[in-house]
């Protein structure tokens, strides 16, 4: 499995670039597909952006706009959450059929289905005479 994870680190002042947090992910493999699950609390379906550039998959989750708007009218007494969006990139194994990637969002968990190409799926080889 070469579904390598790219973790981006920010250097320098970071003032000119919006800050991102790296979401925690699980990656599972079944016979038919790889399954990627990422925790992105506060991100709705509309806040998710998934892009594919050659074999690099990038997931971005936007949540700051609605939060900052809600926070404008109140005072923080205690704060542990980070006021940033989520972003993480993955280098996909060539065996993944990038045309059939699908994704869904449920209660802050993004699930991305990465189907294996037909040619690499486990299968029975018929024995011929």
């Amino acid at each position: 499995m070469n579904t390598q994870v790219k973790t981006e680190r920010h250097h320098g002042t970071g003032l000119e670039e919006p800050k991102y947090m790296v979401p925690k992910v699980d990656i599972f493999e079944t016979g038919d597909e790889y399954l990627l699950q990422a925790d992105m609390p506060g991100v709705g379906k509309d806040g998710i952006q998934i892009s594919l550039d050659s074999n690099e998959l990038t997931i971005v989750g936007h949540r700051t706009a609605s939060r900052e708007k809600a926070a404008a009218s109140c005072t923080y007494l205690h704060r542990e959450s980070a006021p940033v969006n989520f972003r993480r990139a993955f280098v996909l194994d060539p065996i993944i059929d990038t045309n059939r990637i699908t994704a869904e969002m449920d209660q802050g968990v993004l699930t991305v289905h990465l189907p294996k190409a037909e040619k690499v799926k486990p299968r029975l080889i018929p024995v011929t005479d």
Partner: protein
Amino acid sequence: MLMTLTTLNRPSLWTSRAFGEFGDLQDEINRLLDEPLAELHGEFFTGWAPPMDLVEDADNLVATLEVPGLKKEDIQVRVEDGVLSISGERKQDEKLEKAQAHRTERFYGKFHRAICLPKPVKVDAVKATYRDGVLTVTMPKTEEAKPKQIEVRMG
């Protein structure tokens, strides 16, 4: 008992934006601070301290907790003796138990967070909603706790 409760009302040391990227460090600190509380409840705390915020507006105290991927019935919210207490459990998807795991960074299991409320709230009117993996607990302040405008009269 009193000692334990005072540790809950800890100062917000980690609110600075500069700490935004240190989510893991913050998790670890939250876990360490919460451990005495877990002992109080007689169960071993296994290590998920989801980030909690507490804000105040004119009428309400509002707490939010980032707990993605739960079922509504697996979350318990309690307000008692001026302490908001939230516990729950994230369960692993049964379908994936047999799948081969290549990376497991997400936490499964039980969590418990509690925070002292700095103002009295109407316990009967507390509402909790769960949306996009964020639990929001809205607690209306009692009339005495609301800000009042005092009229100045001519002497």
